[in-house]
């Protein structure tokens, strides 16, 4: 995607500067200009450009070579192309010695300049992909990897920065697919524990006994199959962070064990008698309404308060519509590389469709939808047709095409979906349905609706 790259054209002659800039824009790049070496150096201080076109002869004390040397001090890996009207071996040698990547004599032919730019951008793209893949491999995500301009998300970023270096426990709440693990990793990498381990455990994935051994480890012979001593996740995370995902799903016994670890910072391996002390920061996450679970006695209140020292709420994607175009373009950029498709953008009416979708699976669902559209797309632009699988769902949600059911059935469905949407928050669900809380309780009873 050429528009990701910005090029700086530096020349004191306006016609020369603007005509080259205009041609590069037609080729799809973003272009900035500078009328002097001084201006170019200032601009490169603020921003790293993919390529710098610098005219060799410029008045005002700073010529092209000096400009290049100054830019190189600020941007060690800058790709600089020196342009000159006077081809002499000496200037060419001087330019290359000072680190010019290329040297062109004007007027040059279109083919030459086009190949030059394409070659440099190809290398820059590979460098960027390499860095991106390394990052994905090491999973060293930071706050910058969370894409959002939504005010609630910005507030969340501020909170993460403030609390990152504390040892306090963090509870992250958000619907499935909102990026709870990404936020947890961002908290970890913004903290002074960033160099130490980040250990993630999905509490819902394992049976109680397995989870216990997974978290706390076991001694040799502790149970059938425990052939050797094994360190648990808490020990692995010593000095770093443990991320307990889907914490709302753990059994009462494990809730008690966990409470002890949080209070005493120590535990015993399964089948062991030696007390193990660890320095671990705990970040827990859930897509359930834990407050509700506490009220209903399904989750220990003392554990909840221990976990909920710092609470981070991630808003669902439908409440941050302004992020959909940003995220869509981000996923196109990343996934088109991974899938090997030459797709650069999304059409306006396809974006409109994405904005109308409800995204129950949140950012993860959006990512999967982009991937599906990319696989089947035949052009450089994702169209509405590429998202036809979503269009059907959006149409199905049209209030005027409700299925042929009784009014009572319709009311039951409306209540069920409001309860699901608000994660069982009766006050909020009643407000969304436009009825009194007591009326909602009556109807829940009448239709025998479960609230979880």
């Amino acid at each position: 995607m050429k528009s990701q790259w910005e090029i700086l054209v530096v020349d004191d002659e306006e016609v020369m500067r603007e005509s080259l800039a205009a041609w590069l824009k037609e080729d799809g790049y973003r272009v900035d200009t500078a009328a002097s070496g001084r201006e170019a150096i200032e601009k490169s201080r603020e921003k790293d450009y993919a390529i710098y076109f610098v005219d060799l002869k410029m008045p005002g004390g700073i010529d092209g070579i000096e400009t290049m040397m100054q830019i190189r001090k600020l941007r060690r890996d800058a790709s600089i192309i020196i342009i000159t009207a006077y081809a002499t071996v000496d200037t060419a040698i001087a330019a290359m010695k000072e680190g010019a990547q290329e040297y062109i004599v004007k007027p040059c032919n279109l083919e030459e300049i086009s190949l030059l730019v394409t070659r440099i951008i190809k290398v820059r793209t590979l460098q960027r992909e390499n860095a991106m893949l390394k990052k994905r491999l090491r999973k060293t995500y930071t706050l910058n990897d969370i894409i959002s301009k939504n005010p609630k998300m910005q507030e969340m970023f501020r909170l993460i920065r403030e609390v990152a270096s504390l040892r306090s426990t963090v509870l992250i709440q958000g619907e499935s697919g909102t990026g709870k693990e990404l936020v947890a990793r961002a908290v970890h990498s913004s903290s002074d524990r960033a160099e130490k381990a980040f250990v993630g455990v999905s509490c819902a994935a394992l049976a109680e006994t397995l989870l216990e051994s997974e978290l706390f480890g076991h001694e040799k012979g502790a149970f059938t199959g425990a052939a050797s001593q094994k360190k648990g996740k808490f020990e692995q995370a010593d000095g770093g962070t443990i991320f307990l995902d889907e914490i709302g799903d753990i059994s009462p016994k494990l809730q008690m064990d966990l409470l002890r670890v949080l209070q005493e910072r120590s535990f015993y391996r399964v089948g062991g008698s030696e007390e193990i002390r660890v320095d671990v920061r705990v970040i827990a996450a859930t897509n359930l309404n834990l407050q509700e679970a506490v009220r209903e006695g399904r989750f220990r209140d003392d554990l909840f308060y221990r976990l909920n020292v710092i609470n981070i709420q991630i808003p669902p994607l439908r409440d941050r519509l302004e992020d959909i175009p940003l995220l869509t373009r981000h996923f196109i950029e990343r996934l088109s590389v991974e899938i090997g498709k030459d797709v650069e953008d999304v059409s306006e009416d396809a974006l409109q469709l994405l904005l109308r979708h409800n995204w129950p699976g949140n950012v993860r669902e959006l990512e999967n939808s982009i991937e599906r559209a990319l696989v089947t797309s035949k052009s450089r632009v994702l169209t509405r047709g590429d998202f036809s699988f979503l269009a059907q769902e959006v149409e199905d949600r049209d209030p005027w095409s409700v299925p042929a059911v009784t009014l009572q059935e319709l009311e039951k469905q409306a209540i069920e979906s409001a309860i699901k949407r608000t994660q069982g928050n009766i006050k909020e669900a009643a407000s969304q349905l436009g009825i009194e809380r007591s009326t909602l309780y009556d109807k829940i009873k009448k239709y025998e609706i479960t609230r979880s």
Partner: protein
Amino acid sequence: MSLIYLTSVGRIEEGLLEILESQLADVFGLRVGCLKPLPEPSYAFDPKRRQYSSVAVMHELMRVCPASGARLLGITEKDLFIPVLSFVFGQAQLNGSLSVVSLARLHQEFYQFAPDQPLLQERALKEAMHELGHTFGLVHCPEKACPMSLATNIHQLDLKKTDWCVSCEILLQEAISR
């Protein structure tokens, strides 16, 4: 009201402007009209390069461009250049109103071949679509057969077709409907 205007900049191949008028109306789906011819662009001549400054011709077009929102394409027989390049087939304002096409290097005679009128017309249409496409915000397309692909020589221009590729068609229709 016409949304695309054509004009000749100096004397050009007879009948070409009228053919382009109807062909461009077809490919853009817009009304196309012709303005009165402009004089020879002697103001744009660079004696050192013995070529004509494309930027100077664009300035002249700006002076005569009609209503805002309309596009104006100038057609000239003169060989155009911008300072950094040895020549250009044409130039346009990206997302703007103005564009210009040079016929100088579209003639077979330029490459020491016999004249070929239909080929000249076809090349002129492709180049006019390309430059006008830029005024609708389209940038160079990686599809070699699309009129919006970058042609650095006449061979690459001949590889292009006179139909937009799917992507450019979508982007063009969106730009036109805005």
